[in-house]
C-alpha cells in the first residue's frame, strides 16, 4: 500500500484529461494557454513533481474535460513534448502528442514594435515559417521570429 501511495503523486481521475510531462518551468504558461482559471470542474495541478525524463515536471488533471486538437496544439508553442492522456472510467483510452499548429491565433505577441498588431485592438495571427528551424511568421508585418524567443499575450 505504501509504495502505491508514493507512486501515485496525485489522485486518480475518473473521466477527463491528464496532461503530463510538462517542463516544470512551463507549467503555469500551459495553465494559462488552456484557460484553466476559467474552468469550473475539478482541476488538480502538480508542480515540481519528480520525473525520470525531465528531473522535475508539471502535471495537470482536468475532470470531465476533453480538449480539441486546436486547444491542445496551442500548448506546443511552450511545451512541445507534452503528452495528453484521455481518461474514461479510470482507464487511459487515448494518448496524444501535441503538434505545432499551422496557424496560431491570438496567443503570441509580435516582437516587432512597429507591427500593426501591437498598435491596434486586434488579434495576432502567426503562420509556421519553418518547422525545422522553429520559426513562425507574423501574418501582418511578415517578420519571422524564433519560437524560443516568443512572448505570450
Amino acid at each position, binding site marked *: 500500500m505504501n509504495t502505491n501511495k508514493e507512486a501515485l503523486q496525485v489522485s486518480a481521475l475518473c473521466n477527463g484529461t491528464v496532461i503530463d510531462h510538462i517542463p516544470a518551468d512551463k507549467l503555469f504558461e500551459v495553465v494559462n494557454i488552456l484557460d484553466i482559471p476559467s474552468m469550473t470542474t475539478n482541476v488538480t495541478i502538480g508542480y515540481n513533481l519528480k520525473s525520470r525524463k525531465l528531473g522535475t515536471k508539471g502535471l495537470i488533471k482536468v475532470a470531465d474535460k476533453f480538449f480539441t486538437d486546436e486547444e491542445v496544439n496551442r500548448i506546443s508553442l511552450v511545451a512541445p513534448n507534452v503528452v495528453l492522456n484521455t481518461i474514461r472510467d479510470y482507464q487511459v483510452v487515448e494518448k496524444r502528442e501535441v503538434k505545432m499548429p499551422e496557424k496560431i491565433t491570438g496567443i503570441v505577441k509580435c516582437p516587432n514594435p*512597429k*507591427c500593426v498588431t501591437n498598435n491596434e485592438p486586434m488579434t495576432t495571427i502567426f503562420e509556421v515559417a519553418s518547422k525545422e528551424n522553429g520559426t513562425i511568421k507574423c501574418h501582418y508585418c511578415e517578420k519571422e521570429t524564433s519560437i524560443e524567443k516568443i512572448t505570450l499575450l
Partner: protein
Amino acid sequence: MKNKSLVSINDLSREKILSLLETAGKFEENPNRRLLEGKVIGSLFFEPSTRTRLSFETAANRLGARVIGFSDAATSSASKGETLKDTIMMVSNYADLIVMRHHLEGAARYASEISPCPVINAGDGANQHPSQTMLDLYSILKTQGTLENLHIHLVGDLKYGRTVHSLLFAMRHFNPTFHFISPEELHMPEEYRVFCRKNNIPFTETTEFNESIIANADILYMTRVQRERFSDLMEYEKVKNCYRLTNAMLAGSKPNLRILHPLPRINEIAYDVDDNPKAYYFQQAQNGLYVREALICDVLGIEVE
C-alpha cells in the same frame, strides 16, 4: 471578407505579375481611359508620401475616378485617437477602393481583411510597397525586353531598403543573378540570403563599388544610404561617398545597362549621370503611373482592352 486587395508582392504569382505588366503596357500607349467613371477612390495617406500619392491620384484621375482622402494623418481622425479599423470602415462606406499608406507594418493586410471594398497597399512602414516593385519590374521589362536571366546589381542600403527586398522576392520567378554592393553595416540581411539559396538564386556580395564591379550589370539599382541608419556617424562619413555613381564609372558598362533608383536621390547618383542614356530613374517614376492604373483596374475587376 475576401476581396481582390493588393497587399504584398509576395501574394502575386509569376503569371499574375506578367499579366499586370502587360496591362500597364496598354496604359502606356494610352493613359487616358475613362474606365472608372462614377467610381470614388479613397486615398488614405496616414503618413505623407508626395510621390506615391500623386502617382496614385493621377492614375485615378486619368481613369476618370473621383478621389477623396487625406495626405497626412494629422488632418484625419487618427489624430483624435480613432483606430485604423474605424477609419477604414468609415471610408469604405463612401469609396469603391482604398489606396493606403501607413507607418505601421501589416496595416494594409489588416485593412484588407476588415474592409468590404478592396485595398491597395501604398506602403506599410518598412514592410511592403507592391506598386513600387511592380513599376521596378515594368522598368526592367521595358528596358531589357525580358525579365529572365538578368544580372541585377543592388547598391547602397540593402539592410533597410524595402524596395530591394521586394524586388528580390519578385524576381525569384525569373532566374536572376544578384550582386549585393553595400557597406558592412547595411549588408543584405541573412533571411534574404537564405531566401536566395533556397530558391537557387546565385548572388555575390562585396563592399567595393567601382567600374569593374558593374561591368557585367544589366540593371544597376541604386538606393540612398541614409544617415539616420548609422549608429556611428564617423562610419557614415567614411562610406557615404563610396556608393556614389558617376558618369565616368559607366564607361565600360554594357550597352543595355539601365540605372534605376526608387527616388528621392540625394548624392548617390552624380548629376552628370542624368544625361547618360543609361539613366532611367525619371522614366522609371513615370512608369509608376501606368502600373498603378493597371493595379487599380485589376483590384476592381475591370478588363482593359
